[in-house]
């Protein structure tokens, strides 16, 4: 063999080695995807120290969740666990993990990691929002084998898989047991490791978090970009300017900025079904309000009929919102007959001021009445205040004398608790976020022993209140999907008939996009944050992920 042949063989061997060390995915990943967001919340990379929005925005790229998403419809879908099943007695859930998953340090992801992660989420030092509920409901956890993990509960917990999905909460995030035990919590917080499609590079407090795409094919999607940067830019105008100048590719915006972003040549992405803006009456079941106009369901229905929801959608939400489903229900809600209820809602939530006036007259208030209205906006949805102001004006047009009082959320939230003295007998703005497990939300608002107890409390529980409590109890332990759907129907009907909590619009999440920097993509319905979408966002020259 001549010297030339030896050199040729050596060159081929080198090329093959490089190719093997640098897989195809890594070769096609290039440039940096820059996303500007208004808040990085705690900017901590430990999932047990972060609330839902932060987890969904900046922890989601690097951590996988036990239960994932249905990318097309919204709601829950396969995640680290590809499937899960409830035991015959309803007291344990078994999760089957997908094989071949690994953490960024190369350690395999197994059922032991899933158990360890849930234990961390339930620990006393955890700030996970449902830590206390999980501690109360979960009795034990078993590692059946490397890929099988069982959670045993005190009572049947039909909604547990949804609670362990990022569609709902942070508690499903999977962390590396061996690594944390080896380096300790402090070191893990400095150099976190997850199993998501992006690995952590650095976090600059108050400025940004940087990630690098993993080089192997990931079940969530292999990133098209080599790097990801999430920038903290609190001022919305600055975020939009950054997208216009190309300093960022995508920025979160509010509905009030959509028009100017479009006029500035940016694309606007709307994520459907992320929230419902609603209003709700407080304590109207109490004996002292028996003679109050708002104690009469006809009056409450009249107030709904007086609202021109399309006007609100067109003028406050700039057309990027839709007519709502019933309370806390969305197109992707589990065990819910969405088409049937959509039809119902379109009729029930129509604009019919004549009928509203007629109902008021029938109830004995042809000249209207005085109504206390607490207007507020929950964090992240400031436009709710404008919606509140608009509906107060619409109620005035049917003769209701609205006494409007605006509250900042921080001062409104404490009013809900205890005797609700500042709210009872009146109405307030409220919100529900898009999540697939509706009964959980209903329980928090309507059960007689809940914090809000809008239908009745333990001492004043009328027919509606009792009907709700009994249906909810039945629903908790019902395993049959068809029967669950029927029970959900009953629950929705009970609440809807009372007109105590009434949706106004179904809102969306909004993003300004520079189409020269990223290709076309779609968000997950109901999922405002993009933490689980970054890996699917194509570069501009690539074909769209979804039309």
């Amino acid at each position, binding site marked *: 063999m001549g010297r030339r042949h030896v050199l040729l063989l050596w060159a081929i061997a080198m090329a093959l080695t490089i190719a093997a060390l640098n897989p195809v995915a890594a070769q096609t990943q290039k440039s940096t995807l820059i996303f500007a967001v208004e808040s990085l919340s705690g900017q901590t990379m430990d999932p047990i120290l972060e*609330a839902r929005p932060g987890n969904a925005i900046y922890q989601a790229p690097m951590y996988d969740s036990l239960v994932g998403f249905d990318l097309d419809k919204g709601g829950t879908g396969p995640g680290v666990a590809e499937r899960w099943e409830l035991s015959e007695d309803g007291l344990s859930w078994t999760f089957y993990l997908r094989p071949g998953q690994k953490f960024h340090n190369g350690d395999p992801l197994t059922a032991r990691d899933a158990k360890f992660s849930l234990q961390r989420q339930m620990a*006393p030092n955890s700030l996970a929002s449902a*830590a206390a509920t999980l501690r109360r409901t979960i009795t034990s956890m078993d590692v059946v084998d490397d890929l099988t993990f069982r959670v045993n509960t005190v009572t049947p917990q039909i909604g547990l898989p949804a609670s362990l999905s990022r569609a709902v909460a942070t508690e499903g995030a999977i962390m590396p047991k061996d690594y944390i035990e080896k380096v300790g919590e402090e070191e893990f917080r400095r150099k976190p490791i997850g199993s998501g499609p992006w690995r952590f590079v650095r976090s600059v407090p*108050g*400025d940004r978090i940087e990630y690098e795409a993993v080089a192997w094919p990931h079940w969530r999607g292999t990133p098209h970009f080599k790097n990801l940067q999430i920038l*903290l830019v609190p*001022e919305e105008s600055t975020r939009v300017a950054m997208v216009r100048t190309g300093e960022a590719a995508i920025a979160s915006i509010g509905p009030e900025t959509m028009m100017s972003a479009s006029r500035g040549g940016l694309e606007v992405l709307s994520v459907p079904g992320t929230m419902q803006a609603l209003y709700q009456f407080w304590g109207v079941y109490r004996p002292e309000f028996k003679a109050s106009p708002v104690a009469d369901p006809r009056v409450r229905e009249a107030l709904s009929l007086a609202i021109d929801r399309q006007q609100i959608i067109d003028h406050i939400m700039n057309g990027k919102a839709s007519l709502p489903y019933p309370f806390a229900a969305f197109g992707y809600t589990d065990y819910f007959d969405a088409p049937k209820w959509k039809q119902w809602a379109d009729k029930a939530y129509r604009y019919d001021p004549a009928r509203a006036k007629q109902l008021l007259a029938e109830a004995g208030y042809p000249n209207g009445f005085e109504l206390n209205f607490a207007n507020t906006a*929950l964090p992240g949805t400031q436009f709710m205040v404008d919606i509140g102001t608009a509906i107060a004006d619409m109620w005035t047009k049917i003769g209701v004398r609205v006494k409007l009082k605006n509250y900042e*959320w921080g001062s409104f939230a404490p009013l809900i608790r205890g005797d609700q003295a500042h709210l009872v007998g009146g109405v307030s703005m409220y919100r529900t976020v898009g999540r697939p497990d509706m009964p959980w939300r209903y329980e*928090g608002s309507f059960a007689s022993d809940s914090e809000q107890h809008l239908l009745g409390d333990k001492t004043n529980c009328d027919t509606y209140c009792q009907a709700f409590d009994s249906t909810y109890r039945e629903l908790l332990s019902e395993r049959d999907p068809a029967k669950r759907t029927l029970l959900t129907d009953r629950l929705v009907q009970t609440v809807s008939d009372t007109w105590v909590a009434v949706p106004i619009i179904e809102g969306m999440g909004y993003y300004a996009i520079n189409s020269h920097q990223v290709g076309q993509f779609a968000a997950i319905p109901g999922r405002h944050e993009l933490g689980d979408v970054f890996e699917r966002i194509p570069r501009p020259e690539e074909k769209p992920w979804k039309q």
Partner: protein
Amino acid sequence: MTRYIVHRLLQGVVLLCMVAMIVFFLGRLTGNPVDLMLPEDATAEDRVAMIKALGLDGPLYQQFFIFVGKALHGDLGDSIRMREPAVDAFFSRLPNTLALIPWAILLAMGVGIPLGVLASLNRGNMIDRIAGIFAVLGIAIPGFFLGILLIFVFSVQLGWLPSGRMGGPEHYVLPVITLGAFLIAGFMRLVRSSMLEVMDSEYVKLARIKGLSEFVVIWKHCLRNALIPVLTLWGVFVGNLITGAIITETVFAWPGIGRLTYEAVIYRDFPLLQAVIILKSMLILSINLAVDILYAYVDPRIRLA
């Protein structure tokens, strides 16, 4: 002089105690961080558990005594949101703000002082009026509006400068202008009125009679004396810059202590808010003390008084 310094230091300690007390109780009137950390459908049980985990479960007076006890040992608590010592969070962001402030002062002095001199030399004519308009605009235009306007013109329309964030020298231009605009006006007005007073004094007339050039009279004799009141207010101006940085840093996504203050307020991060306000107060008090001492040296009447 020592007595004067000790007196001022004692005043500072009393003031800090008052600031700490006001921030502690006022901050808690604005709501509870748990309401912002938990979703709206969280159970009462989860709420109680989180309040306990964050150490917010005791009565208010008890929390205050714990805070004072720790503060006396230099521990201002941990940030609720970031789960790190609030003092560390402050000092990790302070250099970013301090990187901005000297440039804003330099800009303000570089533009404001000559403009003030120019206005005083042309009292009542067009130049004075134009300088006056600048001064009024500098004071009247809110920082957030000026910042957004500058971003729109120089970043979006002209594409000359970045819209925000820390980075190379080009990243400093717009935040420094926004932060310094108010001070330019302040310096200009102060120097103008001070110059007019000085130019009317006997020693300036004497300098002119002695045949000194107008340049020397104005820039050496008048300006040097006119700058004494500016020195007094320098401390106030730096204080303004530190507090004014909240808006500039928020608009330009600048990760300094101004933004840290904004975030502490937004998230009801009480320990962080307390730490930031107390440490900022200490910073401002120190600067003011330094200026006062300097002024006492310059003007003996102060220390004698």
